[in-house]
């Protein structure tokens, strides 16, 4: 966003950047080369703060500082383990040669668990980038001193061991299933407690709310260093420097596992566009800045490009599908949805109180007056404004759609100055566009005006 070289595209005039640059003392970058892209969008299919978002933002930093891309932009499309972002990417970005999607093992889990119609195979594989080992950890006060302690209890009574980790269908649950299978306990009997975020899961492990925590090694790092958590095992093939814990395999559990992250391009791009995107990622992973970031975030270098990555992803998908089916994660197991007592209770309550509320309204003396008091013309005008906005924002562009919405709302309030309102509408829309697109760096649809902005 804050491109330093002169004459860049307009986004570098981002007002926040200018304000910050005035105050900041930025370190000088190394010698500039010819950038491969003027602008490249990186889509993180998750909310800001998580692993995919971090990957996208680290890429943004490296690409920009190494002058590989002049203006890299991060967009977040969160939801459902990345499958919402993937579906939007495959649909809306088809044929666009200037956009990449961050993805990884957890997205595979999401595709299987939520039975997503769109899979990784629908996008163009560019490369696997990083990997992270997982750790099994217990609070310092836990009775489980070693992995053997835990597994003995687990074999004796599987359900008595609660495994706390990230979302259902994600890498943590997959590892729990793999361990169960390796020690010959039926994976379906793993009492897995999914938490929606790493933070929530960490709190549950620290407080001893679950028997054992299962998460990325980096998530536990600070607590391990402080002695608050004890690592029972790590999922790497070899012992890791700086981590005083055995591997699973070393303790007789034949599982090696890591949570990998990767980069995809949209379908429908030309071979030349694909080559250019691959070259961009390749230049990035070869930079010294990227090495530094890998060390800082404790990520493993798992760079694997092109078709080899595609073959790897296919094999992983098969493995994930098998494990999740054994675990009984809903859609993957193909079971029909069971009776849901809570949902039934809520719906019954809705119907019951809906009827009761209806009765209370009918009995009320002043009912007719209130309904007659409604004027329908203003409602129709605002409804039209909303419809215009939702249906036309993409083609007409945000400024046109917002100005029309504003103008119709003003009509609804019976303003007697249509011309003045139109002028104000355009002013408000342009200001809002400037505020969001440049100051807050949230790209809005530009539509027909796109060429001038």
């Amino acid at each position, binding site marked *: *966003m804050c491109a330093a070289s002169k004459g860049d595209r307009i986004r570098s005039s981002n007002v*926040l950047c200018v304000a*910050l640059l005035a*105050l*900041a003392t930025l*370190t000088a970058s190394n010698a500039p080369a010819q950038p491969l892209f003027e602008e490249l969008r990186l889509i993180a299919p998750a*909310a*800001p*703060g998580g692993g995919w*978002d*971090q990957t996208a933002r680290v890429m943004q*930093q490296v690409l*920009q500082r190494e002058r590989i891309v002049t203006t890299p932009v991060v967009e977040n499309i*969160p*939801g459902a383990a990345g499958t919402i972002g993937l*579906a939007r990417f495959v649909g809306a970005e088809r044929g666009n040669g200037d956009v990449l999607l961050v993805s990884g093992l957890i997205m595979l889990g999401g595709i299987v668990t939520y039975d*997503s119609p769109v899979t990784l195979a629908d996008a163009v594989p560019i490369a696997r980038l990083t990997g992270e080992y997982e750790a099994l950890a217990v609070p310092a006060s836990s009775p489980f001193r070693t992995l053997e302690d835990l597994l003995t209890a687990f074999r004796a009574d599987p359900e008595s061991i609660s495994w706390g980790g990230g*979302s*259902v269908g994600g890498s943590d649950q997959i590892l729990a299933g793999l361990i169960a299978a390796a020690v010959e306990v039926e994976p379906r009997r793993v*009492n897995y*407690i999914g938490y929606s975020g790493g*933070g929530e899961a960490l*709190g549950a492990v*620290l*407080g*001893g*709310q*679950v028997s054992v925590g299962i998460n990325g090694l980096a998530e536990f*790092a*600070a*607590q391990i*260093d*402080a002695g608050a958590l004890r690592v029972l095992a790590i999922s790497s093939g070899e012992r890791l420097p700086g981590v005083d814990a055995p591997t699973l395999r070393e303790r007789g559990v034949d599982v090696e596992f890591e949570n990998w992250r990767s980069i995809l391009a949209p379908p429908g791009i030309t071979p030349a566009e694909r080559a250019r995107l691959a070259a961009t990622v390749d230049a990035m992973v070869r930079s010294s800045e990227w090495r530094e970031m890998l060390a800082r975030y404790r990520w493993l270098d798992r760079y694997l490009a092109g078709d080899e990555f595609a073959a790897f992803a296919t094999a992983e998908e098969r493995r994930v599908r098998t494990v999740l089916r054994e675990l009984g994660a809903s*859609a993957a197991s193909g079971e029909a*949805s069971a009776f849901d007592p809570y949902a039934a209770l*809520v719906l019954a*309550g*809705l119907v019951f*109180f809906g009827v009761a*509320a209806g009765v209370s*309204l009918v009995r*009320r003396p002043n009912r007719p007056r*209130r309904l*007659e*008091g409604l*004027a329908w013309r*203003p*409602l129709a005008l*605002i409804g039209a404004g909303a419809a215009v906005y*939702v249906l036309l924002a*993409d083609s007409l562009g945000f400024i046109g759609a917002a100005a029309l*919405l504003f*103008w119709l709302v003003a009509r*609804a*309030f019976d*303003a007697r100055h249509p011309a003045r309102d139109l002028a104000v509408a355009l002013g*408000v829309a342009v200001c809002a566009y400037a505020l*969001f697109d440049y100051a*807050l760096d*949230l790209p809005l649809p530009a539509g027909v005006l796109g060429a001038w902005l």
Partner: protein
Amino acid sequence: MGTLEGLTFGFANALTVQNLLWALLGTTLGTAIGVLPGIGPALTVAVLLPVTFGLDPVSAFIMFGGIYYGAMYGGSTTSILLNTPGETGAIATAIDGHQMALRGRGAAALTTAALGSFVAGTLATLALAFFAPALASVALEFGPAEYFALALLAFSAVTALLGASLARGLFSLFVGLTLGLVGIDQLTGQARFSFGIPQLLDGIDVVILVIGLFAVGETLHQAASRRRDEPAPVQLTSFMSMSRDDWRRSWKAWLRGTAIGFPLGVLPMGGSVIPTFLSYFAEKRFSTTPEEFGHGAIEGVAGPEAANNASTAGVLVPLLTLGVPSSATAAILLAAFQQYGLQPGPLLFSSRPDLVWTLIASLLIGNVMLLVLNLPLVGIWARVMLLPRPLLFGVVLVLASLGVYSLNRSLLDVGLLYAVGALGLAMRVLDVPLVPAVLGLVLGPMAEQQFRRAVAISEGDLSVFVTRPISAALLAAAALALLAPPLLKRWRRFRHE
């Protein structure tokens, strides 16, 4: 480093021209985004992250802290003046705050909100400085059973918000609970009521419900009912601020709000809905004039605003001492720490005392700045109400549509926003209260998930809810909150006879 020593050191560090400028920039930005519906501090900090990479981490965190605190100040403004809260923490403020504005007392409402935010922010930040590690270890005692009990306690607050008719109030609650069913079940990964629409897999964002019911619903209602009984335009009879009586009624509410908000902020369950509504509930229950609530009681603004800011500071406790983020903004702040190669956790206070104490000191300074910034704004905001209403509501809808679009960059969400707006209009016309629906959407999924989590961990043993002491105490408090008022009423009647 002791706490006092640390604070002294922190102030010495924070009171440089450069750091004060960062604090000023952060607080100004924060106030601005707080006023915009849908745009929260999480998004703003995320956008600024790459820009601040070249900065010294201390400066960057001073600015982020300012944004974080500032956003909580700005949030009350639109609630009070337009009845259009842009985020969940400001809904409780809207109930009585807007009523005050309608009665020409908007300036007093804005002032008590700003002062309450200041008092709560300062006290809570001091509590963070002195008690953070101890509080964090108490928070870890909270497991699923305790969170479930807490959710039930918060449900009891609904009784203060049901409005004129029990049936309609509960109907509204169940509308919220039903909306809360939509999306992926966190415990099984199974999609419920999402009708094959991928955008619904993640459930209905509470921000959409809040902006839809309040901002869009209010606009539709004003547009449609204007003809019949020309509603008195929101005029301010005077720009006078708080009276002596207002002060007398506010200060206790600020303190109570702080006492409720801070500990609830420490618990990693995210969001300011529970602290603000429990504060509103407490104010109404302990008031000698409960009948004023809903018609412009100043305590109903002072308490929740204080609770909102105190819980904001509380969120920093688990973040700094444990590395556990309990809100969206805290998750971004955690990512920001990691960007600088720092790992919040038990060792942060000893490994980077300079950073921690400077941050805490600059949060205290930022609070003063926010007060200085916001008090003069009160007069300006109050005059905003004098703008022609067509233009005012045009701006409201344009900003609401934009804010919702920016959540997931989805126009479908904007469509959903207007559908919810139509629902809000219908509920207004039929005199169904709006707030229980929001509470249902927030609390329903939380109660259900935590209940099932607790039962899964205990292998189906329901006694965990009463054998764990904190859980049992919270359940008793919830029962008391539900049963005490009607019993008391009966007792009084009995004594009178």
